[in-house]
């Protein structure tokens, strides 16, 4: 039996909608008939700390966390957090990152500098890299807060899940009043040009 597991990591800062994106992703792969597990840490991280969510799917998934260095796709909502999590990715893995910098406390207070050249350093190690202005595309869809769904749309290009399941998952997980905007945001992300290098 082929039990190829697909390992996806979603990283960013508390409050960016990472959990919702991970829920929609999990729901879509379940609808497509896969076993799925998702794991992240709540609690202290809600107060503006780093967030890492793991989603794994396949015929039968054991561990809810992605073994270090086995991630297939890293899906970053903030640049420094994306860079921080690169060791979770396998050699030749793919990175989709939101072009957004959120300063951590030490940078806000002027004690440390936000690292320079993050996007270049990511591309150097992982050439299969898509940088998206999630906020801008979400704004085009009708609400800048839907940037998480734009990124999900971009990631969906690389996953073997039919479009209908993605849309059904959005219908199930997103509140009704935000659904149309999120569908638009998803399709904008999904239409992004992301061909393998």
């Amino acid at each position, binding site marked *: 039996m082929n039990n190829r597991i697909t390992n996806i990591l979603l990283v960013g800062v508390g409050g960016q909608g990472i959990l919702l994106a991970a*829920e929609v992703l999990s729901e879509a792969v*379940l609808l497509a008939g896969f076993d799925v597990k998702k794991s992240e840490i709540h609690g202290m*991280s809600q107060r503006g700390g780093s967030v890492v969510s793991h989603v794994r799917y396949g015929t039968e*998934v054991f561990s809810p966390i992605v*073994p*270090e260095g086995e991630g297939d796709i890293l899906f970053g909502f903030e640049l420094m957090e994306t860079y921080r999590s690169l060791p979770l990715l396998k050699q030749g893995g793919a990175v989709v990152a939101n072009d957004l910098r959120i300063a951590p406390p*030490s*940078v806000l207070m002027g004690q440390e500098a*936000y690292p320079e050249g993050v996007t270049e350093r990511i591309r150097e190690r992982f050439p299969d890299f898509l940088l998206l202005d999630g906020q801008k595309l979400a704004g085009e869809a009708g609400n800048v807060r839907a940037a998480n769904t734009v990124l999900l749309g971009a990631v969906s290009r690389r996953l073997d899940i039919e479009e209908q399941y993605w849309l059904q998952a959005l219908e199930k997980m997103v509140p009704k009043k935000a659904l149309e905007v999120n569908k638009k945001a998803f399709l904008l992300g999904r239409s992004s040009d992301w061909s393998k290098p």
Partner: protein
Amino acid sequence: MKKEILSGNEAIARGAYEAGCRVACAYPGTPSTEILENTVNYKEIDSSWAPNEKVALEVAIGASFGGGRALCTMKHVGVNVAADPLFTLSYTGVNGGLVLITADDPEMHSSQNEQDNRNYAKFAKVPMLEPADSQECKEFTRLAFELSEQYDTPVMLRTTTRISHSKSVVTLDERVGGLAEPKLVKNAAKLVMLPGNARVRHPFVEERIKKLSEAGATMAVNRRELRDTSMGIITSGVCYQYVREALPDASTLKLGMVHPLPKALIREFAAQVDKLYVVEELDPFIEEQVRAMGIAVTGKELIPVCGELTPGRIRTAFGLQQPPADSGERLPGRPPNMCPGCPHRGVFFALNQLKAYVTGDIGCYTLGFMPPLSAMDTCVCMGASIGMATGVSKVVSAEEKKRVVAVIGDSTFLHTGINGLMDMVYNNSTSTVVILDNRITAMTGRQDNPASGFTLMDDPSHRIDFPLLCKSLGVKHIRVINPFDLEQTQNVLREEMERPETSVIITDKPCVLVKREGVFQKGPVYAVEVEKCTGCRACLKIGCPAIEWRPAGDGSKKGTAFIDPLLCTGCDVCRQLCKFEAIGRAK
């Protein structure tokens, strides 16, 4: 059959519902909190927050004695608080099934220690189940209620953060019917644990645990999976998943019941494999018992005692991969922080300025120990701040004594801090106590408590009057302050620290995350007038996430402050720190 993706906590709530549970009671604590936040969605279950874990368990015990099935949930350290009723509950046994969930936190993602609560099951002589995914969370919760009634015992179910907060696919079933209706039945010999009765119950407890160990050999939850028999691994919980990932060919004995151990089954498994291992997080709980059976076993000499396991850590332990190399690169950290507009910020700023020695407590305000506020000196457990202030004041000089201040949140004060305050008054302590009343249990995600005015089921309820409560305990000096007024906060603190009597200062601004209408009101947004900003950095000393230092960009140390209008709540604290009147309402 309906399938859903549920977290371990959601699945436990579902399991309790399906098992016909009538009462669920808890004190919130990560990673257990969401269980009660989900039982409350089932109208058949009376769900409530108790002021602490001891009361929560006592409510569940009462429900069980009355004949109803009852669930009680808490984080690992909560069981320390509930241990008193737990140990004697083991003797009385139950009427309606009683299940106690302990949610442990290996790696201390959100806790002050990583105690292994499997030890409690052995200590209290009660069975413990340990699920390995959400489906098992649901099934084992149902089984726990059945075992509880069948063996006349409370049953503990242990999760860890990775089980409670991970989601996986669960098949839903219907709620069971046909359970006996609760009613009052007198049975003093069983339920009144005076020495004469307790002496009769103790042998029953010993016999019960023996029977459970024997039954464990054929329980479906204890599952032997023979693959390559050169290596046999005894494991349980999420570690089973990691073992299957890291060592897919090894034979496994997966224990769904981790106390009492099914000794006969362990002997059989040990005889079927060439080399026996135990893979378990934290203590060598299974390993030591297997070794005491006279069976050669390898465990903690390979597997770390500290922290949680991962597939990678198990591979490393078995020599299958190298530990990840440290790249040497350091990125700025991103620790949690108090929210913009948090009412705790001004208090800790003032305590820092006054060079107070702050005995701290458990809540969002524990973050007051972090720079730049750096105004917390101790944090041990829920409610400890007040007793520790009394104690430290007993040993230091009269001059140093004045600097001692206990800081505690509303929910933590009601949890176990109130006893400390009683003691402080009774024994004539001179310390100062600050009750940070933000009207919610904030750290765990905004749960109601006896001072919020609402119940878990969202019914309006009495809201405790802190000044009146403190007065009734005998506190003579009670001051209510606005923590956003820095001058008032600092002056009142200074006066009360100086006073050679017990005093209590109560802050009265709500948590910015409270969503209930009329509690938190966002004020007008503030902005920095760049022309007036001298770049003195005074406003950065409160560590507000809405204030950012923007370097001039010419390579010098110069720069100006900037307030993010999307994050600012208009609390006014930064304006009071600016000597140059560069901060004001945004135009």
